[in-house]
């Protein structure tokens, strides 16, 4: 290529890009200029993302300052909290005793661990002509482990008298990425499935089950379910409701069959026993997957917020305290329910969490 042709092609291209960039830069100028105040950095579980957006917007509007929440996943969130890169973190699984010791050492005080985001997980399916199904945990486990392969299987039919079931093959869809939703779903199948599910709860789908389809993210699962006749999968209930075209399984609780409800999930969390060997500042809970009270929905996810009880800097302490107080308050929980379809904490849990958060202080 000689120099004149270089000039003819390269220069106009550069010129066009430059003009474009200049215009964008001009457009961006107006967006800066936030009100003063401190910056609080946090991050972690992606499940809390939508709720965190709502909380941050509301909190920053009334109190100023800037709060960041990076959706880096629970594992990285806990790591960054322990390395003190984050002042607070969100995690789908409560801290193990090793993690708790490490975090307490980093804080130089106890670690505050309060539930912030509770959400029912729906078992959703796409089967033409069938709008709802009743299934017990054992049947759900058998479907996902490949024992039941047709929709007109007797185990499904006998729980759904009067529903006309086609003989379509069942296509199961699960998450291909690591996910708190998968952890809670497999925990439920393991504990409530009457021995039909042998793998312990895990954030990744069990590898010995190769019959299903792994798709990426909640949106991937919802997309796969919408596109596939005869499919069944699990996802955050708010995402299933938002999709609008999927049917939802009512799971067996005691002698009833309950559809996923926010209230049902919140009341299971309140009734569940605390996790063993936790400090008084932790509300870590082992969710009772076999709960049988009226309206209970034990297939749910509880995501926690982590903070130090003591911060060396009183400004940070005040800000963390203020933010977490808002998050666990009835107003904060209502905002999350509106934005992310989560289940607001019950009054008792909200009060208890507020009490723990109020002890955060600067030293």
């Amino acid at each position, binding site marked *: 290529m000689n120099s004149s042709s270089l000039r003819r092609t390269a220069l106009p291209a550069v010129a066009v890009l430059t003009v474009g960039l200049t215009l964008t830069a001009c457009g961006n100028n107006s967006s800066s200029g936030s009100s003063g105040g401190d910056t609080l950095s946090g991050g972690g579980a*992606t499940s809390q993302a939508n709720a965190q957006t709502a909380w941050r917007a509301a909190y920053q509007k009334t109190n100023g300052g800037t709060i960041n929440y990076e959706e*880096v*996943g*629970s*594992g*990285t969130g806990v*790591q960054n909290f322990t390395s003190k890169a984050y002042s607070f973190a969100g995690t789908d699984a409560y801290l193990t005793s090793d993690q708790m010791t490490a975090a307490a050492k980093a804080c130089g005080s106890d670690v505050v661990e309060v539930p912030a985001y509770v959400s029912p997980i729906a078992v959703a399916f796409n089967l033409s002509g069938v709008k709802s199904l009743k299934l017990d945990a054992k049947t759900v486990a058998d479907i996902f482990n490949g024992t039941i392969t047709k929709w007109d299987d007797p185990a499904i039919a006998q729980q759904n008298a009067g529903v006309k079931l086609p003989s379509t*093959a069942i*296509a199961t*869809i699960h998450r*291909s*990425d*690591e*996910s708190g939703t998968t952890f809670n779903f497999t925990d439920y199948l393991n504990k409530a499935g009457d021995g039909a599910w042998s793998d312990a709860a895990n*954030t*990744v789908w*069990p*590898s*010995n*089950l*190769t*019959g*299903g*389809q*792994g*798709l*990426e993210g909640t949106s*991937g699962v919802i*997309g*796969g379910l919408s*596109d*596939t*006749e*005869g*499919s069944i999968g699990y996802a955050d209930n708010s995402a299933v409701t938002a999709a609008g075209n999927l049917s939802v399984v009512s799971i067996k609780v005691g002698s009833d069959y309950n559809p996923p409800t926010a209230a049902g999930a919140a009341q299971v969390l309140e009734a569940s026993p605390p996790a063993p060997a936790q400090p008084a500042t932790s509300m870590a809970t082992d969710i009772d997957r076999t709960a049988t009270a009226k309206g209970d929905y034990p297939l749910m996810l509880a995501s926690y917020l982590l903070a130090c009880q003591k911060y060396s800097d009183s400004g940070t302490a005040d800000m963390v305290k203020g933010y977490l107080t808002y998050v666990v308050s009835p107003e904060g929980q209502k905002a999350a329910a509106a934005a992310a379809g989560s289940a607001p904490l019950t009054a008792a849990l909200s009060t208890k969490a507020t009490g723990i958060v109020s002890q955060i202080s600067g030293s």
Partner: protein
Amino acid sequence: MTATVSPEKAGPETTPTSTRRGDRTFAAIARLAAFTILVALVAVFVFLAVEGWSGLTAVPAVYAPFTSFASYIWPLVVSTLLASAIAVIVAVPFAIGIALFTSHYAPRRLAVVLAYLIDLLAAVPSVVFGLWGGRYLAAYLQPLHVWLHEHLGFLPFFGPGPPSPNGRSLFTAGIVLAIMILPIITAITREVFLQTPRLHEEAALALGATRWEMVRYAVFPYARSGLVSGVMLGLGRALGETMAVAMILATTPQTTLNVIGTAQPATIAANIALNFKEATPERQSLLIATGLVLFIVTFVVNFTARWVAGRSQRKLDR
């Protein structure tokens, strides 16, 4: 990356005939540019090796659902190669056809428009290809999955398991990859086809060759080296493509050659993207180590393909 195969094909002599300052400055800048690429490549390799080293020899639990690095990486390597193979098999004939049409057959005005449209395809982001491939194209390809399974199910690539219920398979991913690498291969092939000396073509025609014979005996041999370069660039993109595969493919950690079954293992790049976010530090090392393997696989595939192409070229010259 441009291995010159025979001395006749090498560029003009590069010994400087003048030592003016402008020449020296320009030579220095060119040299700097060349070495920067090398430095970047070495830096990436060093990063992968250092960060991924502990992932090669971790405790078995880290490799869950498998128990060793070899068993963890094997299904991913198979998937990566299968998807890329499908992409190249589908894309190369199309690319050569389009390039020949635009360089030797189409009227000039149509050729310009067509070339422009093909280049436009290269500007579509892979996320968009992923969305389109997974949500739209997969559904249309699903009947083809059933057909392939019914008629060619005896081949390990199309059986023995049932075909995908929704087309979210390695086959669909390969087709989408083919569309993604098409513009790269087409653009390069077209340019080298256009470089064929007019005299060679006219000589071929004067000897009584038909259009096709002229293309076969004058254009193809001349363009071979550039053609291989184009295919290699496309193959590199197919091997490393992440988002589109992650969004299309239904995954399962099971070694299989069946590209139209219910689910296949992810490709190496897609597997990193899917799992890095929520991974523990040990798993992150493991994922980086898989990146190192991809680096090496790409290198080996590239090297082998060039060697094969170079060998047949030498045979042709003899």
